[in-house]
């Protein structure tokens, strides 16, 4: 086997030194009844070529060649080949968690840079490196507010990504926390501020909103902060599309930002691995979960970096730890650091501006279609909820024939919204992609019985 660096003769020689007749004697401590006693019934072994062929064949069974307009927590942005080439250096790829600082300074300095970048992006004072993803960052942020406030009630926006919400629910239920959902405004698509305020009481640990929210709407973060703080609660802001922070003001009023950094340099990869981040105020750092790199000096006064504040973590504190997280998403955080180093201040600003422009162009073009309009009025970044005259599921079925994956149907998440879909545009979409989408949607609507006549009457319905 090519991964095993021993010849049979070498194995034999070692066995001789150990005074063993056969390799099975090494397993004598396992009772006979516990042993398998037969070869594993699994496929393989495969050579390198066969492995590549196998995965190429699986890749061909997916959506390669389709143009997709999906976002909803996973975004397709441009990634330079430079970052991936650097990321694949064995010194990064095959190194362990940097507990031994003297021979891990590369990883540690990069983590320190990552923490700095995340603070700059989110307008917060400290950031960790890292959580599993945006959804678990949101759940960990919620549990952090429970520890900080000693309260056990969470007020959560209905416009939080529904899968994030499910994750928060999972963790909250084991801890017996009370979870209250607060709705969104049917006109703006923003979380209903008055309702959130009414739901927040003296037992509330946190108000949790997402911005831009799942429907694409930017939330008035400062107003939610005021509402939460008025009752002694904390505000958690979840961010699923981090590129938005190149154009959208940082949620500096939030007490905790729970962010998904996937869109800053990580491939969609069917949903993972990504990189979650928790950023917060300095005074909350000792209740923050996850790893942190800090600056330190050696005996000769040279600057270096170490993992620090480990007394929060499970390997030191065991059952008193802030979280059970151990292995996180370090390499993904490094990829984000490399991507942002390349993109830089101007690149991120430009990328965000292009996303804004493409999304607005697509909306304007889609609104020329019969019966298609924006569902909500609040400002949006690169994702927007569109209303169609037919079920989105049916329209998408037609689009798939033209190798287009259309807007995400909202019906499965919000049963009253089957005719609404979430359309996402990034700098990766060309003008032609939008034109193809619009033309194909026009044909889809026609085949579903929506013609030009309906288009004439549709403005009156608004």
């Amino acid at each position: 086997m090519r991964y095993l660096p021993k010849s049979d003769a070498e194995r034999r020689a070692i066995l001789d030194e150990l005074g063993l007749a056969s390799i099975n004697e090494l397993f004598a401590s396992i009772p006979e009844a516990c042993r398998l006693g037969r070869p594993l019934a699994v496929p393989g072994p495969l050579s390198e070529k066969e492995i590549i062929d196998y995965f190429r064949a699986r890749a061909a069974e997916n959506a390669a060649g389709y143009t997709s307009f999906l976002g909803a927590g996973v975004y397709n942005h441009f990634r330079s080949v430079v970052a991936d080439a650097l990321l694949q250096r064995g010194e990064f790829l095959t190194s362990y968690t940097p507990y031994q600082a003297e021979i891990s300074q590369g990883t540690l300095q990069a983590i320190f840079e990552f923490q700095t970048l995340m603070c700059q992006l989110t307008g917060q004072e400290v950031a960790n490196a890292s959580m599993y993803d945006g959804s678990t960052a949101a759940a960990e942020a919620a549990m952090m507010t429970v520890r900080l406030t000693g309260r056990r009630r969470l007020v959560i926006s209905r416009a939080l990504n529904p899968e994030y919400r499910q994750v928060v629910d999972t963790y909250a239920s084991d801890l017996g926390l009370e979870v209250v959902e607060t709705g969104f405004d049917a006109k703006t698509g923003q979380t209903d501020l008055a309702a959130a305020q009414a739901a927040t009481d003296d037992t509330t640990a946190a108000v949790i909103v997402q911005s831009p929210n799942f429907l694409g709407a930017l939330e008035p973060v400062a107003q939610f902060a005021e509402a939460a703080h008025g009752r002694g609660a904390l505000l958690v802001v979840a961010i699923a599309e981090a590129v938005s922070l190149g154009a959208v003001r940082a949620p500096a009023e939030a007490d905790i930002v729970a962010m998904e950094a996937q869109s800053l340099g990580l491939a969609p990869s069917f949903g993972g691995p990504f990189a979650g981040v928790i950023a917060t105020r300095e005074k909350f750092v000792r209740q923050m979960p996850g790893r942190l790199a800090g600056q330190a000096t050696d005996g000769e006064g040279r600057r270096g970096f170490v993992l620090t504040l480990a007394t929060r973590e499970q390997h030191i504190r065991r059952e008193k730890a802030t979280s059970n997280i151990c292995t996180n998403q370090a390499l993904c955080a490094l990829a984000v650091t490399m991507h942002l180093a390349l993109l830089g201040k101007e690149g991120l600003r430009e990328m965000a501006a292009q996303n804004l422009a493409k999304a607005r162009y697509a909306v304007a073009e889609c609104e020329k279609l019969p019966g298609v309009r924006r569902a909500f009025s609040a400002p949006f970044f690169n994702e927007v909820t569109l209303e169609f005259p037919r079920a989105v599921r049916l329209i998408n079925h037609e689009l798939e024939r033209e190798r287009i994956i259309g807007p995400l149907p909202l019906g499965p998440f919000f049963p009253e919204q089957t005719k609404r879909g979430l359309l996402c545009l990034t700098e990766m979409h060309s003008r032609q992609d939008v034109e193809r989408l619009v033309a194909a949607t026009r044909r889809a609507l026609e085949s579903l019985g929506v013609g030009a006549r309906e288009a004439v009457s549709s403005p009156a319905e608004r």
Partner: protein
Amino acid sequence: MAPTNSPVARNVSLGERLLFEKSAPGKRGMELPPLDVPSVDVAHALGAENARDGVDGFPEVSEIEVIRHFTRLSTWNYAIDLGMYPLGSCTMKYNPRVNEFVARLEGLATEHPLQPAELSQGCLRILRTLELFLLEVTGMDAITLQPCAGAQGEYAGIAMIRAYLASRGNPRKKVLVPDSAHGTNPATAVTAGYEVRNIRSDSTGRIDIGHLAECVDEDVAALMVTNPNTLGIFERDIAEAAELLHARGALLYMDGANMNALAGVARPGDFGVDVMHMNLHKTFSTPHGGGGPGAGPVAVEKRLEPFLPTPVLVEKPDGRLGWDRNRPKSIGRLRAFYGNFGVLVRALAYALAYGPGMVEATRDAVLNANYIRKKLEGVYDLPYEQPCMHEVVFSDARQKKHGVNTMDIAKRLIDYGFHPYTTAFPLIVPGALMIEPTESESREELDRFVEAMRSIAAEAAENPELVKSAPHSARIGRLDEVGAARKPVLRWKPQ
């Protein structure tokens, strides 16, 4: 002067400042194609109150500077690709490069988790094939690939136990954890809403089965046990422990962190385990990457299947794969989407490379640990005499007499070109040296390691100060960790 043949030599090691300290206005490392639709004014599009004019302090550096920056940083790291990583319990084995290649394929890396299942059959087939492989290796009945790491797998497993017991009327209050356990075990039990009770190890390093029997009562939900345990010793009485728990209505959770000692030899499903997780970044070789990403699949016995995290991958009668989201008894969702897919791709590539031959890796891992044990026995104190499996734990008792402790010896290993072993763990061995070579080491590399450890033992006796002040060849000395924690500097700020 006679030529010396030192195991390591100082190399050119370039200094490198922080990204932010290299930044100068107007430079950039990436350019986008020109915008092909009408541009919009950000403040106008978002409202002035929502708009931002770039991120203050963000770096501005060119492409070649980014390449040099990270390449220089990389040279400051130790890595598997450079040499042996004898970290006990961490299983730092070779990470095959083909796995990196296939995880990046167009059609895999490019796929969106919310695209229709009909257009994701390749991704789903990869997941299903890995599920079946892991079920055969563990001997369990059902599985989820959703957990992102071992600790999240543990959490899923304990949450399932809680949901199962609750469905029978009482979730119970306590989880039992041996004193040799990983720190994640007790932390997980608390996250899942349980109190922790420690179980003693006996004089052979195994769970004290008598103490266990005393502790198992109607309040106990489960025992979390690592097998082989963190001393590298197989828990011989595991089946008896399972019976003891089951008789009182409690369950047996196995931490599969050390599954690399069992794969192809013994299956937890065959010795009474009800729930277990595996660390694919250990046993299945996915790269540690400086601390993740990992993957922590959880396999369960049949009666826990209804409680698996949602969604569950199902094979339809026509052979198509899809997600079952209608799982009323499920513990819920652990993360958005389906898990660390890219990690799961790498794990399957590794599994398929070995196939049934995975047992050879297990054998070599155990052979290597026993070889090191034999070669260092008598040089370092061996607190437990039982035969070891994939890892061996010594103590610094002999070196302590010269004022040298396990951390000093570990740091001195750096000067010999090795990553330190795991120090001071498991907690039941004072001054532990926990060594796990994995199957990826050649005899030559093992001998080099043994020679280094013997040489350090000699130094500890003859010149203890040399060891205590190590490392001497790293680019930086021991850092002031206490000072760093007292006044934390956790981000760069402009002067």
